[in-house]
């Protein structure tokens, strides 16, 4: 007999399926609100137009990112880096203040799992009904319910994948391609890939992602201290736990406030018992708080046996919110957000690059003037067409450009710029500042520094 055949000698212990019970309450409402808000933004934003473009569109082939009326070019990479730093610092800041706020309320894994669970509950019923259905033999009722659930899940996953691709390809054109069955191969791949990822993560894997795959759960403890908000069971008040009737006096029975109904375990999406203490699997969704408060209400006990609290409070101390790490994270975060906003607001909507002609250092003209040739690359980052002026700080120099410096909105133009100077303008290399400005908006102005080469002798 192989080891796998005997139940007790099995090489592997299967992960028990978690059937989270539905719960209502303050935090459940907040979680649903976050879900509606975040998923609403995700599914609707691509359909909203802003300044003549899709409000958020990452146009990779054109190398332009449209974000609410601002076009970011590859040259604006610094903004992306800043935004990533701000996102990272926000995670540090909010984790230090309020624990795993991100995991419980805003993480895509949590949010999409919540939607998939909603569909599951709608079709198969709440926890006990789902458990009974899974344990029952296959019959017409089970087949219909399972198929309907799978159909809804697949449909929702496909819509999610479609929306994801819609952030990279204009979503209206994408919709027409889908309807006309003319989707490109890469779009098809990414649509199916993201749909499968959504289905797999939110429908099948669920809490396994948080327990085994997510790195954030592993290093969050580095951001926690004794003043960080965590969800905790008040052991001193709850123990010893035990069942009782409402009319019983806990003191006389020698019991704490926990009636050991195990409802806090039944509502937990990761299937843990919060009464065992803070665990890495706890995603701080606060479902156990809502459930325990309802039970405490029913028993006419004070709420808050399971609550948001800190280690300091549980050990009889006081929570200190404004501690050094909060100040450091907060000040850095604020400075970066203000810096980014200021920088984006003062961004010059013109980019200019001057590239020296490498074939000839300089050319002597018949009238004894010296000429240097450059390739000028101008990018009009504005949504309006512009005509540009060109000037230099050196009055002896003559600037000749062809063709005329006119660019359509968001156009990249390549021009030939010739700079001519008298032979006595200097020897070797002379620094030149060339300034480009629009004729209609003086704010749009860019100065480029380059070198003008002359004979050395």
């Amino acid at each position, binding site marked *: 007999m192989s080891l796998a055949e005997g139940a007790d000698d*099995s*090489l*592997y*212990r299967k992960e*028990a399926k978690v059937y989270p019970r539905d719960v209502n309450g303050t935090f459940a409402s907040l979680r649903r609100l976050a879900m509606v808000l975040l998923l609403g933004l995700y599914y609707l934003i691509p359909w909203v137009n802003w300044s003549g473009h899709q409000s958020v569109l990452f146009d990779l082939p054109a190398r332009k990112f449209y974000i609410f009326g601002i076009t970011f070019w*590859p*040259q604006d990479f610094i903004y992306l880096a800043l935004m990533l730093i701000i996102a990272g610092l926000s995670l540090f800041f909010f984790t230090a203040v309020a624990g795993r706020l991100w995991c419980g309320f805003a993480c895509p894994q949590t949010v999409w799992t919540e939607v998939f669970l909603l569909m599951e509950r709608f079709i198969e019923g*709440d926890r*006990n009904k789902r458990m009974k259905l899974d344990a029952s033999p296959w019959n017409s009722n089970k087949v219909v319910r399972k198929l309907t659930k799978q159909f809804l899940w697949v449909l929702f996953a496909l819509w999610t994948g479609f929306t994801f691709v819609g952030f990279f390809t204009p979503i209206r054109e994408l919709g027409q391609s889908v309807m006309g069955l003319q989707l490109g191969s890469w779009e098809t791949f990414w649509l199916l890939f993201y749909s499968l990822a959504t289905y797999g993560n939110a429908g099948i894997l669920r809490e396994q992602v948080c327990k*085994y795959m997510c*790195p954030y759960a*592993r*290093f969050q403890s580095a951001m926690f201290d004794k003043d960080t908000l965590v969800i905790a069971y008040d052991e001193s008040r709850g123990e010893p736990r*035990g*069942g*009782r*009737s*409402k009319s019983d006096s806990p003191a006389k029975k020698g019991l704490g406030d926990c*009636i*050991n*109904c*195990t*409802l806090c*375990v*039944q509502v937990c999406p990761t*299937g*843990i*018992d919060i009464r*065992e203490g803070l*665990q890495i699997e706890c995603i701080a969704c606060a479902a156990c708080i809502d459930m325990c408060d309802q*039970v405490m209400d*029913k*028993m006419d006990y004070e709420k808050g046996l399971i609550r948001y609290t800190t280690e300091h409070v549980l050990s009889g101390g006081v929570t200190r919110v404004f501690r050094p790490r909060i100040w450091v994270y907060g000040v850095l975060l604020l400075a970066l957000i203000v810096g980014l906003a200021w920088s984006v607001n003062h961004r010059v909507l013109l980019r200019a*690059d*001057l*590239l020296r002609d490498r074939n000839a250092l300089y050319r002597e003209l018949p009238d004894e003037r010296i000429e240097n040739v450059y390739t000028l*690359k101008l990018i009009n980052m504005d949504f309006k067409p512009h005509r540009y002026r060109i000037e230099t700080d050196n009055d002896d120099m003559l600037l000749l450009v062809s063709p005329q410096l006119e660019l359509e909105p968001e156009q990249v133009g390549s021009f030939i710029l010739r700079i001519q100077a008298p032979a006595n303008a200097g020897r070797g290399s002379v620094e030149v500042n060339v300034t480009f400005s629009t004729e209609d908006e003086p704010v749009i102005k860019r100065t480029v520094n*380059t070198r003008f080469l002359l004979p050395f002798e």
Partner: protein
Amino acid sequence: MNTEHPVYRRWSMRQRDWAVVFWIAFLSAAAGAFVLFGLINPLDMIGNWAAEYDIGVRLAYGLAFAFLYLLCLLACSLTMFMIRTGPQRGHARGEGRRPRPEIHDPAKNNPDLDDEDWQ
């Protein structure tokens, strides 16, 4: 014969893990650089903005390799971190896992909870 003598200069497990991270990241970056630059000229990737710095081909290869090495180092370090902090040997057999929490009918020993749909 006494065989229990200290072995000097033996690396700790953590040091060996880091050595593996650096070495595997180097091999991956080297393989990646070979494949990438077999297909693409690095100077084409740099774009016009770098022209004024006059980056030569060798420096472009070097910079690109350094970038690839950094990415591979990040991936390898995160993998090491996930393995070191993840389930330990025997986890699949159930070793080291917390026993499943006890769950029962909420109304068991709690008669006041029997009016809910908790059955």
